């Protein structure tokens, strides 16, 4: 930033002549230095104020009372005080595996594997169904939410606000509401994630719709096509590769969401976290962690491959 200012000031100096241009340069340079110093001070002060305020609100430098190994109580900063407990907790979740009894140790670690595999299947199905609902809702609403395709501004405004509310409220909050309405079970999870996905996908799809080339639509219209024909043969072929790619990306996100949504009772593997925590089955936690981790990685990898194929298709067309 200063560099470019120096250069322009230098260019100004070169066009003039003698000592006064040099003085002018010095003046401009000093002014620039003052300005950047002022900006820097302002930025740093603002940052420090924000940092102080948020660390006060966030209990970041809270001093807490802990019990020392010899039984006495002492005041410590919360983070170093908590770190040993964190290490202790994590080491509790790691099971003891011996090489010669590896099979039975593993079986002991994943002792609820039948239930877990069922719940994992349920988790993926929740993500699948939520994606389907999100795609249907998002696709239908993306046309009234696109500026170039909406019938009138009122419909545009209402659809956009609806999509914004649907995606700003997190899945877990929708899940809390739907668990109350539709009772405990995967159905509440499907509806919660589906609603959130509708909001997110509707926005992305409508942006895709706004960027389409309108000439194919005019071509279909000129050949005597109705509005539906225009959308079907003029707009959909243009947006389809993008929509597919966004949908796959959303499926990945939904798998992550559905793996934790059970924590509030909306089905899937998340409820097992709650069970394991309340029964203090610490090694179960690491087993669940590994299961979710592996699933997420596999699904991310597979969908990335698929997405690249879809993008490849788009380039070939």
């Amino acid at each position: 930033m200063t560099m470019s200012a120096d250069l322009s000031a230098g260019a100004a100096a070169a066009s003039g002549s003698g000592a006064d241009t040099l003085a002018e340069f010095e003046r401009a340079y000093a002014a620039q230095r003052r300005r950047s110093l002022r900006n820097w001070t302002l930025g740093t002060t603002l940052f420090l104020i924000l940092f102080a305020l948020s660390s006060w609100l966030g209990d970041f430098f809270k001093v807490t009372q802990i019990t020392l190994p010899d039984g006495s109580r002492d005041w410590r900063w919360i983070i170093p005080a908590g770190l040993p407990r964190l290490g202790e907790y994590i080491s509790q979740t790691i099971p003891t595996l011996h090489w010669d009894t590896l099979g039975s140790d593993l079986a002991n670690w994943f002792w609820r594997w039948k239930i877990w595999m069922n719940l994992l299947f349920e988790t993926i199905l929740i993500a699948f169904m939520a994606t389907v609902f999100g795609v249907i809702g998002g696709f239908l609403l993306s046309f009234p939410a696109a500026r170039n395709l909406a019938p009138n501004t009122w419909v545009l405004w209402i659809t956009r606000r609806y999509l914004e509310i649907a995606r700003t409220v997190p899945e877990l909050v929708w899940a809390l509401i739907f668990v109350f309405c539709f009772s405990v079970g995967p159905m509440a999870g499907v509806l919660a994630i589906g609603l959130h996905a509708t909001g997110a996908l509707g926005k992305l799809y409508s942006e895709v719709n706004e960027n389409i080339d309108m000439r194919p639509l005019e071509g279909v219209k000129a050949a005597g096509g109705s509005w539906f024909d225009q959308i079907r043969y003029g707009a959909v072929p243009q947006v389809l590769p993008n929509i597919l790619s966004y949908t796959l990306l959303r499926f990945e996100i939904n798998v992550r969401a559905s793996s934790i949504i059970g924590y509030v009772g909306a089905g899937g593997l998340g409820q097992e976290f709650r069970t394991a925590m309340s029964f203090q089955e610490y090694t179960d936690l690491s087993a669940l962690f590994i299961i979710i981790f592996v699933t997420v990685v596999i699904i991310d990898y597979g969908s990335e491959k698929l997405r690249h194929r879809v993008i490849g298709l788009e380039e070939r067309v």
Partner: protein
Amino acid sequence: MTLTAKEIAAAKERVPLAFQAPLPVRLRRAALWAGFIGLFCYCLWAFDFSPERIWTGLGRLGTVLSFMFPPHVWDNWRDFSEVLNGLGETLAIAFLGTLLGAIVAFPLSFLGAKNINRFSLLRQTTRRGYDVIRAFETLILALIFIRAFGLGPLPGILAIAVSEIGTFAKLFSEAIENTSKKPVDGVKASGGSRLQQIRYAIAPQVNPVILSILLYNFESNVRSGTILGIVGAGGIGFLLSDRIAAYKWDEAWSIIFLIIAMVYLIDYLSGLIRQRIIGKWDGAK
């Protein structure tokens, strides 16, 4: 000029592939759709989407939605300050989480950048490390940190920080890789050391990108910060889940609207800052 049915039939005869895809492709498509719809129907059955359940659910949903009007307004300062404090905690969680994540990720990102770290093995390992960190779920991390640090906003901060380390390190290292090599050569030619090359040639190029990434992720962390409270990690989510558990739907809706307003405000402000500092720079995606 209108085509007759006979001409269309003749054209179909001549170029059948222009009218429909070959049989194997059609079969494959049909099988895909059948499998898809079959799976969907199985889910409907397995998740018990029965009409009466949907009907009672919609009835209850209507009741819940009816509490939206008239909106609940907190009439005494004590209750309202609690809500404001919750919103502030959420912002604090997002701010400190983003900041801590960025501080840890910044040095790590140099290890993953091709033009800084020339040891391919180390670079690849670091990048896989980023992916591993990114796969951790924020909420699960929050559950772990609650055990160590107790209920409150601190576990939320740490959960966001840890899950952001992987994202930031990946994005930063991509930003570093996308820099031009010419300023580096310039500093090298005037005798700059490796560290000076990074400080005076690479840093000015990546700083705006990093700032823009930070703002984007701060916005998204404000959104995820609202749910951390549901598991007990502080912020507005704690109050919200508390109100929902007590069936105080009118207060719950008001809190939800406040969350939406806060997210709008933050998006707006960060858009302003981005334009002010970075200008219309569109490289950070």
